């Protein structure tokens, strides 16, 4: 069965650079969620989209932005990267009206 695809799997950036993380949800899933998991931390909700509209917002810095496109894939754009942005970024998707979020393998971002 198709799963949530995230790319890239690993990303190395330097401070003040920008990064774009991509998420391809499971086919027919219309809701996408982004979570950030710092080293040794629990995942923290960043933002979510339903039918290409932002549906909820968590602790996402102003330096970050995200959107969901017409094909339902989503991109998380991160600018002016800081050392503290180093983390594992998860994307999850769900089908509208259902309760299960399926997670991708994550993108590990390292900011040097």
């Amino acid at each position: 069965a198709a799963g949530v695809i995230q790319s890239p799997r690993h990303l190395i950036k330097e401070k003040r650079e920008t990064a774009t993380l991509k998420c391809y949800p499971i086919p027919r899933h219309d809701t996408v969620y982004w979570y950030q998991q710092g080293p040794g931390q629990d995942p923290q909700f960043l933002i979510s989209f339903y039918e290409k509209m932002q549906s909820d917002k968590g602790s996402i810095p102003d330096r970050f932005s995200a959107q969901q496109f017409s094909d339902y894939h989503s991109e998380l754009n991160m600018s002016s990267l800081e050392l503290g942005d180093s983390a594992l970024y998860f994307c999850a998707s769900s089908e509208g009206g259902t309760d299960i979020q399926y997670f991708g393998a994550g993108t590990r971002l390292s900011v040097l």
Partner: protein
Amino acid sequence: AQSVTQLDSQVPVFEEAPVELRCNYSSSVSVYLFWYVQYPNQGLQLLLKYLSGSTLVESINGFEAEFNKSQTSFHLRKPSVHISDTAEYFCAVSDGPCGNKLVFGAGTILRVKS
């Protein structure tokens, strides 16, 4: 705001022994509870969920969890663990069953020893 407390950061246990991973949540009118498992270098996989109905929920690999409203707990149990159960387990809560963000606990690392 919802919150989740996982009381144990690490739980070492011998193979074939029983295990309980503890989870407490902040009280709310409606609460939906989940356990996710994360194997090394992998994403989060749903283990089991409680939305309504029977307070005892089971997964296909022998884990079970019981929703206890009076104690605001959702502890995860397995009567006999295997080496392959070694992973980090996250308890999570959401405000609603559909389309709501998950709030995770800090995680419990289960280390199964032979």
